[in-house]
């Protein structure tokens, strides 16, 4: 079982998220876009489509295909990152695509491609979760048919304690990092990764904690969309 009252490096409580702000529709030229600031992470997501598939042989006759690119800017890390796509970025692009795919109703857009571009402007650990939140908001902003939004948050184990939203320092010094993504209305998990070791009790605790984090982020995603589209009249009815 986890020990209580161990202070985190950032001074946060074990179940406390970093400061998060999401803004939808930040890029004029994209069909949908979102900017998320997740602690020190700054991530921009842009969605194009549905559009024609190039190269054409990738076209699927009864549904859309999703192309996702997660890319870190050369200035996003402590030391300069080489700007070409690394193995890690290819893997995260795949993971994000597969996390978003269950939410998108791809059958509504046969023979098309939906392109998701994620640029990490500044990174501080947990960027894949932040990127999923931004990409999902951008997809809704682009008007693509979705079963639900996708929300992602990580939980982990640092100094023997299960904590929410592991940042870069905690990720390096901690014992476990467990990012999850889920569809908040149905509770279906679309991304699940676990790096490190957790006992069964710790795992259950971390999963619950990550789910509460997702709930908080879902509200922020909704706020971002309602700010753009409804002038913050979230859920209010009109005659």
């Amino acid at each position, binding site marked *: 079982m986890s020990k209580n009252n161990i202070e985190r490096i950032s001074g946060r409580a074990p179940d406390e998220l970093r400061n998060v702000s999401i803004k939808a529709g930040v890029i004029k030229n994209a069909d949908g876009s979102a900017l998320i600031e997740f602690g020190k992470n700054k991530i921009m997501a842009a969605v194009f489509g549905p559009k024609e598939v190039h190269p054409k042989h990738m076209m699927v006759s009864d549904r859309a295909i999703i192309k996702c690119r997660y890319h870190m800017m050369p200035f996003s890390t402590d030391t300069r990152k080489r700007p070409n796509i690394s193995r890690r970025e290819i893997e995260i692009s795949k993971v994000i695509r597969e996390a978003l795919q269950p939410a998108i109703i791809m059958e509504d857009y046969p*023979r098309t491609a939906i392109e998701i571009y994620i640029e990490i402007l500044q990174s501080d650990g947990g960027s894949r979760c932040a990127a999923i939140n931004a990409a999902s908001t951008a997809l809704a902003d682009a008007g693509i048919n*979705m079963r639900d939004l996708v929300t992602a948050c990580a939980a982990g184990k640092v100094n023997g304690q299960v904590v929410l939203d592991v940042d870069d320092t905690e990720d390096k010094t901690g014992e476990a990092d467990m990012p999850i993504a889920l*569809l908040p209305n149905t509770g279906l998990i679309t991304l699940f990764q676990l790096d490190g070791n957790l006992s069964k009790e710790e795992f259950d605790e971390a999963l619950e904690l990550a789910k509460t984090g997702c709930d908080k982020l879902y509200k922020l995603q909704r706020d971002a969309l309602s700010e753009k589209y*409804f002038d913050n009249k979230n859920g209010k009815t009109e005659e």
Partner: protein
Amino acid sequence: MKTNSVERKYVMPGDVVIEGDYNPIANVIKDGNKIISTKVGMAEIAYNGVRVIPLNGTYIPRIDDVVIGKVADMNGFAWEIDINSWFFGILTGSAVFGRQFSSSRDSMKSQFNKGECMIAKILSFDRTRDPLISVSGPGLGKIEEGEITYITSSKIPRVIGKKGVMIKLIEENTGCRMTIGQNGAILLKGTDEARTKARDAIKLIGNQAHTSDLNDKVISLISK
């Protein structure tokens, strides 16, 4: 309980619009007893079913829609028309020249050249092939004069208004004649001043389509 009145509320993807035995009409999915929205928009719950009027998104062609398009490309048999959707509309030579069309005898350029605009109608579209369009019919054909402005296609019903109230209001107050394409393109004809006023009104509708009192806002903008 089903009533004749229409209830409206703002929804986002994944929101349960209503529970019960309702007919899903547009931009909603049925999951068991729940009607779930798939888009950001305004849900309308009426006696005949539930729909979500989206506030964003690209145009999906529907048969018999009147659209305004621009020739993007052409070959010896057909024109490819940009209809503001993810596929080009196909206007075949025989749809313009008639049954006797011969690619060797008839010059495609004599009718439509690249960059020229037209008012057309969607003849067929079934998602397995590109939409087929036609320019034969009353009010259809090449656009010789005017200006085309664009708005999100989902907001076109707001530009038209209930029983055409909004379009009538803009036309009468600005003196600009408008032809509306369901794909979000609007053709404006009139003096420079009339077109500018109409364009501003359309822009206002685009920005505030989800708000009430839109008629009053448009009137106050035009009368400035």
